């Protein structure tokens, strides 16, 4: 059982035909979470956009550790961003943002 204060960081890759903004990413993920879990579930998840890199379409989200699976599921249900076809997938997940960055560097080597 996850500690109620512990958090999880997810690296999410957005795949779209046109570039998208951080605001669109945030809205798309939160809408998907709300569609799946409702407003209460969304509030309990405590999801937050930490960073977004437009050139690569990668975003880092933080959420409550116990809700990481639900955030993954909500991300997998995304089919549109700003009315245009899109896909989102979690490529890496970690307990700290530092090890998430280390993981990315290892993967690129």
């Amino acid at each position, binding site marked *: 059982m996850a500690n109620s204060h512990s958090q999880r960081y997810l690296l999410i*890759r957005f*795949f779209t035909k046109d570039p998208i903004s951080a605001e669109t990413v945030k809205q798309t993920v939160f809408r998907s979470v709300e*569609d*799946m879990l409702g407003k209460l579930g969304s509030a309990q998840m405590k999801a937050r956009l930490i960073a977004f890199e437009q050139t690569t379409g990668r975003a880092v989200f933080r959420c409550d550790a116990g809700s990481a*699976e*639900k955030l*993954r*599921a909500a*991300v*997998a*249900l995304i*089919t549109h961003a700003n009315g245009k*076809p*899109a*896909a989102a*997938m*979690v*490529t890496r997940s970690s307990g700290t943002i530092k090890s998430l960055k280390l993981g990315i560097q290892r993967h690129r080597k």
Partner: protein
Amino acid sequence: MRAYADLHLCPPLDDAANAGSMANLLSELETRTVGLVVPPERMGPSLAIVDLFKSSGIDVATRLDLKPRSREELLKGLRRFRNRYEVIAVECTVPVVSRVAVRDRRVDIVYFPKHQSRNIFWGNLAKSCRAALEFNMSEMISGPGLETALHRVRREIEAAAETSATVVGSTKASNPLELRSARDIAAILHVFGLPFDAALRAVSSIPLAIVTKNRLRIGKPRPEEGVRILRRSEDGE
């Protein structure tokens, strides 16, 4: 480290750019094995698209989706193609086909299309299921009626969990926008009621075991009825 597999990809076989893009994304998602749908008329020793996936470090298993309308059509298809493909899946559109497909041990995977509202994985069908039940992400999330589709997934997962039927999670992607990470598919299955371990196995060890088992079976000398090949030596003896 866990090896992930996606046994249901159906990209157009002549579109190399689309396939290349899918292969790159799958490689980034650390998917080790994919099942590529190849129709019998295109089945040959070398397909350009297979080489594309292999060059990205992805193992490719050939898959056939049988879509029979009757019991006879299903049995004929199995007799003809079982020994030519690494994965045989049956799309259960008609109840009479579903009843036979779930029991026949030559069938690796069965899946129930979203639009067939009267033919679902439930009751006796679930109890007698020998094949793995497949959930396809792209079918689940495409088009209208997401709530209905998810409700149905929940019911089918419940039935599978009650009867200990094997579950497999795939994407049925034909382009990069339909691809999903295997781990995310496991998350969906878990959120909709499958135990966490079973959900992880549904995208890793179970699909990989299907491919391994069939590769041994397809290999040259065929054993007697009831004899199972455990492994082959280096020289194929």
